[in-house]
């Protein structure tokens, strides 16, 4: 309390001194004030500049894209190709949905299981360190490397050819660290007391996880999944390298022939935007696709924000969540039971 009084006194003193401009130190203090004003002004400016940049980019894309983007013909007609990219983006939308389903179906179970292992089971040993090291590195690899990997491994070695399956699996590896990180944080946020009381009832570890821990961590895990859906929607480099870009037929989800799932080469919206902006004479349509993409991202964010808050700060980080320095984790009881 006394501290604060002191503080106010300090500022009043500064003000008084400045008012008394006859004082010798008056110049010095006014220069401090000037510096203060400029510095805080610049900080204020840089904060709002970021907002302005965002609004400008979105506004620019919307201004040129809105008229086309919300026409029935554009959203719900199949593409016809041709020099001007006639037709709509129905197949691209379907391909995007398939890709989301496919990659999440692979990445979510693996990622959540990994997170469970890391937060509930992992002993402090070299294997755990190896796993953490791998996740750490996977998170930093740029998407074009995943693309090269998808091309060499899924497309060529496993003979998936250019297909949504090859692209989807490569994308799944890319989003794995996102899901692992967010799920692990969600699991760690579950109070230790829950675990202890469940175990005290004689319930075994798996049942505790399944019945107690997972349900209370679920909102956080869903957040992670929504985050990764955002990344899947925006991904293009991987898909150009591993999924090809055919738009002539509606992509299939399952097939009777190898590789059985998502066997078709297809373009997602982001890839299509790239082709529209560069390979077709269709700049205005590229803007329209941009509008659709931004809307999807916005929709995901709103869904995300509408969800229950898990760990105090809602959506502290949108994408770089897995990159943020995590505070040191106190040795939990988890390794003891």
């Amino acid at each position, binding site marked *: 309390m006394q501290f604060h009084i002191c503080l106010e006194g300090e500022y009043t003193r500064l003000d008084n001194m400045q008012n008394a401009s006859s004082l010798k130190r008056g110049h010095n203090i006014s220069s401090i004030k000037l510096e203060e004003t400029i510095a805080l002004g610049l900080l204020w400016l840089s904060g709002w500049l970021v907002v302005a940049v965002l609004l400008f980019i979105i506004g620019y894309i919307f201004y040129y894209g809105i008229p086309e983007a919300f026409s029935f013909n554009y959203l719900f007609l199949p593409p016809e190709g041709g020099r001007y990219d006639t037709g709509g983006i129905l197949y691209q939308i379907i391909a995007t949905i398939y890709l989301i389903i496919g990659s999440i179906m692979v990445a979510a179970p693996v990622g959540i299981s990994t997170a469970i292992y890391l937060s509930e089971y992992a002993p402090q040993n070299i294997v755990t360190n190896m796993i953490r090291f791998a996740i750490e590195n996977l998170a930093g690899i740029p998407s074009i490397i995943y693309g090269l990997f998808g091309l060499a491994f899924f497309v060529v070695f496993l003979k998936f050819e250019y297909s949504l399956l090859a692209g989807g699996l490569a994308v799944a590896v890319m989003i794995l660290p996102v899901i692992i990180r967010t799920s692990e944080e969600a699991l760690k946020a579950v109070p230790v007391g829950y675990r202890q009381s469940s175990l005290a009832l004689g319930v075994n570890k798996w049942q505790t996880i399944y019945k107690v821990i997972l349900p209370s961590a679920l909102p956080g895990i869903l957040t992670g999944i929504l985050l990764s859906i955002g990344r899947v929607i925006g991904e293009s480099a991987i898909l150009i390298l591993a999924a090809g870009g055919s738009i002539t037929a509606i992509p299939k989800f399952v097939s009777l022939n190898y590789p059985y799932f998502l066997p078709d080469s297809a373009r997602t919206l982001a890839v299509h935007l790239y082709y529209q902006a560069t390979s077709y004479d269709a700049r205005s349509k590229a803007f329209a696709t941009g509008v659709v993409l931004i809307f999807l991202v916005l929709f995901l964010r709103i869904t995300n924000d509408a969800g229950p808050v898990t760990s105090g700060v809602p959506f502290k980080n949108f994408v770089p969540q897995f*990159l943020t320095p995590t505070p040191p984790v106190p040795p939990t009881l988890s390794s003891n039971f």
Partner: protein
Amino acid sequence: MNKYLTQKSNRFWTDFVNNLMANIFFLSAFIAVVSLFLITAYVFYNGAKLFTVIAMPDFLFGFDWEPVNQKLFGILPMIVSSFYVTFGSLLISIPLGIGCAIFLAEIASQPVQRIVRPAVQLLAGIPSVVYGLFGLALVVPLIQQFADVAGLSILAAIIILSIMILPTIISISEDSIRAVPKEVKESSIALGTTKWQTIFGAVLPASTSGIITAVVLALGRAFGEAMAVKMVIGNTQTMPSFSPESLFGLLSLARTLTTNIIGDIEYAEAGPHQDALFATGAILFIFIIVTNAISYMFRRRIHEIR
């Protein structure tokens, strides 16, 4: 007796499932390791095939890339351009990003934070092709008109990239600024310093590690970005000209490591050309691993400090 038996078999099954799940979780966790191993193996194996055709120095330090007719696989101009573009964009986004982070953590009121923070997050969520389109449709023609050059240029790439890496810098810096213990700030203020003096003299030094982590991660992101850069840089195969006329390279056309892969991969025939693209990817990969290691180091330091 009967009851006892069912309980016994129940017990058996629950134990069985319990153990089974533990194993499944471990195997899942190990998939990350396997993935990293496979990625490394495939990129490096395919890249290494190139060196049966040409020597490593010719690849790393060669000036010319003409893979089809002349079999020249020099990527030095691309390495230089990659670094140029990356550090150029950092030059813009470090001050802006850290400024915004300080604004969010120290100055902005709650309602203002509620506007700025989602904006930063949304900036991170916008797909890179959309940034590329924005650059291609607005930034490139602007540069073209002002400077009477091609417009497609390193400068355009720097502008677009600096926007793209802002969220990384802002969110991580903000976290580390927020993590500065209250006592540090309070004792600074108690010395009669102004708000800015406290921020500059006490808060920023205390959060250096976090800010460096943010910068290094942003650096990695800028270095690895492919699509947006490809759309605005022109993909020329020459060294950027560092002459004053082209603003010391800013107005030069260029090709980075990532755009080399994206531009050529569709056209590359299996053989040295494709292998050279994998080798380009491998060089990129090595650089990313180094940045990862550096940022990991700094993050470890943060943990130790706290």
